[in-house]
């Protein structure tokens, strides 16, 4: 129920942002996460509030699922002072919240691997019982930082869980043209860790798989690689007309739409209430962010140094 509420809230947010990008334009690139909300929310539902998150660039579902409010998220996207990064990491989005353990995202794909392993090392050293979850795409799985981080994390049995959102595409590149094996999870054995494949459109299955991996990590047994199979519904960024893609997805046809799948488990009336509340929450948050002032130019000189 809580998962449904979050998934549908993220869906409305995704749609609201798309609207904005299409009508008002946008600074930078927006990489829509529509259709992948189920796995994002599902995996994060298995985390404790104090666990650490490094998310990927596909949407804002991760940050919201981890407990952040929509206003600072929209604020980042819209370059407003209320954004969590105050205009410094908006656009392609580097949302952050120390309070919620949302530790951010690098602009270069794959940098989260090594940072995530490092944060897990901090937890191991401090004995704070926290687990770090790192999201990444099938494309990012090609980066060498994966190898360096995965090997070291396994040897040291660091409490980290790797969640690959395999949506079949890395920008214009099909996963099957980029990988010598059919699955990213096939690479887990090279690092002596479990590789788990899960249906990414099934939020509850993703939650369960992630919960297992997190428990394993918390027990000190080391990392797990989870591959959630999903599909990129829209272009790489909003505005990408995908000339390279024959099998473009119509918006309304999200296969196994996680919103519908989860929604079906909830009595109609209750669902309508949740939907209405979620829609209202998103509209209000968006309006609040939109109405907020832009940051003063002087912010650019702040936060270079501590």
């Amino acid at each position, binding site marked *: 129920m809580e998962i449904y509420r979050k998934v549908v809230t993220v869906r409305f947010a995704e749609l609201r942002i798309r609207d904005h990008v299409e009508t008002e334009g*946008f*600074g*930078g*690139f927006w990489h829509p996460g529509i259709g992948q909300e189920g796995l994002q929310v599902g995996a994060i539902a298995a985390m404790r509030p104090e666990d650490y998150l490094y998310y990927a660039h596909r949407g804002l579902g991760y940050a919201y699922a981890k407990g952040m409010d929509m206003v600072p998220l929209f604020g980042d996207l819209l*370059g407003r002072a209320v954004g969590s*990064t105050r*205009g*410094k*990491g*908006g*656009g*392609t989005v*580097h949302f952050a919240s120390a309070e919620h353990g949302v530790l951010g995202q*690098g*602009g*270069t*794909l*794959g940098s989260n691997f090594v940072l995530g392993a490092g944060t897990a090392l901090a937890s191991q050293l401090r004995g704070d019982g926290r687990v770090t979850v790192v999201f990444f795409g099938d*494309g*990012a799985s*090609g*980066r*060498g930082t994966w190898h360096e981080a995965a090997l070291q994390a396994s040897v040291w049995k660091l409490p980290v869980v790797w969640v690959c959102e395999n949506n079949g595409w*890395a*920008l*214009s*590149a099909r996963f099957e*043209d*980029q990988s010598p094996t059919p699955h990213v999870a096939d690479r887990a054995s090279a690092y002596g860790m479990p590789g788990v494949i899960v249906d990414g459109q099934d939020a509850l299955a993703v939650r369960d798989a992630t919960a297992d991996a997190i428990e394993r990590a918390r027990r000190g047994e080391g990392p797990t690689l989870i591959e959630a199979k999903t599909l990129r519904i829209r272009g790489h960024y909003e505005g990408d007309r995908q*000339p*390279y893609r024959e099998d473009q997805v119509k918006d309304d046809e999200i296969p196994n739409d996680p919103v519908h799948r989860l929604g079906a488990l909830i009595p109609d009336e209750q669902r309508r209430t949740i939907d209405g509340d979620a829609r209202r929450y998103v509209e209000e948050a968006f309006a609040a962010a939109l109405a907020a002032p*832009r*940051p003063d*130019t002087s*912010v*650019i*000189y702040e936060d*270079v140094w501590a």
Partner: protein
Amino acid sequence: MTTMQQPASVTGAVDSERITGYARAINEALAEELRRDERVFLMGQDIGRLGGVFGLTKGLLEEFGTERVRDTAINETFIVGGAAGAALGGMVPVVELQFADFLFTAADEIFHKLAKWRYMHGGQFTLPVVVRLPSGVVGGAGAEHSQSLETIAMHVPGLKVAVPATPADAKGLLKSAVRDPDPVLFFEHKGLYRVKGPVPESPDFVVPFGSARVARPGQDLTIVATGLMVGRAVEAAERLAAEGIDVEVIDPRTLVPLDIESIVASVEKTHRLMVVHEAARTAGFGAEIAAQVQERAFFALDAPVWRVGGSDIPLPQDPTLEQAAIPSADDIVTAAHALAAV
């Protein structure tokens, strides 16, 4: 200084006043070099069916096929290191990193392998590799997708460095780069991709490395600028002209080799120099030009060499904020006033 006159600095027949975009000029240069030399091939992310994130390689897959226009995985160390290896195997790779900033993800390959392999191995090999690097701010791409990193390439010996500011230079320098036996880092400015200008049509048109271009002649003050800053410097110069300050704008076009003679000759005429660049001001190439000019023309200078550079901060992602972090035409005008007053 024959290199100071645009026509003289451009070899090959200027057979047309055809107007073409900067991006299109790069695309043409690639196509022509692929046609000219079988050893040339392209490699990078999304350069095939998509034609590149910025559309620079559009149509090339169709003409040259998947063998010569190759989509790689997300593996910058392979893109650059593989190019180095392919060059050792007799090819002439022209590779693209999607953003110049990503040279940090392949830095060992660029600053060690490309720059030093020939030297370390006693000069037995050449590494004719071009690394295309979409550079600079473009409207909200953020701290790791907007930098101007050409100074680092200038500091590490073994790399040639091109920084084209016009469509003609983009085409002519890229063709020179492909024909150069040494590794070249080719910093294309993303903010210039849509800018149009005259581009000669002849496939023989090239712009040699190490020859500066006078973007605007003047008598009172020399401004050296590159990339996006050339246009802003010229704009500032027009405004300053209205006040009676006659500015000469010089675009070095390549930083390695650097046509310091042309800059010094201009300063000997104007007695004042300002360097404008988008790269972070501290330890940017403006410092090198300032240092060289005062070494070579100390007594010709009536005032210190002024530097107008990017703020010493990571670049903010917001399109408005990012503009505040790099020099504007206003900033240049203000600095010129200050410099004229020294």
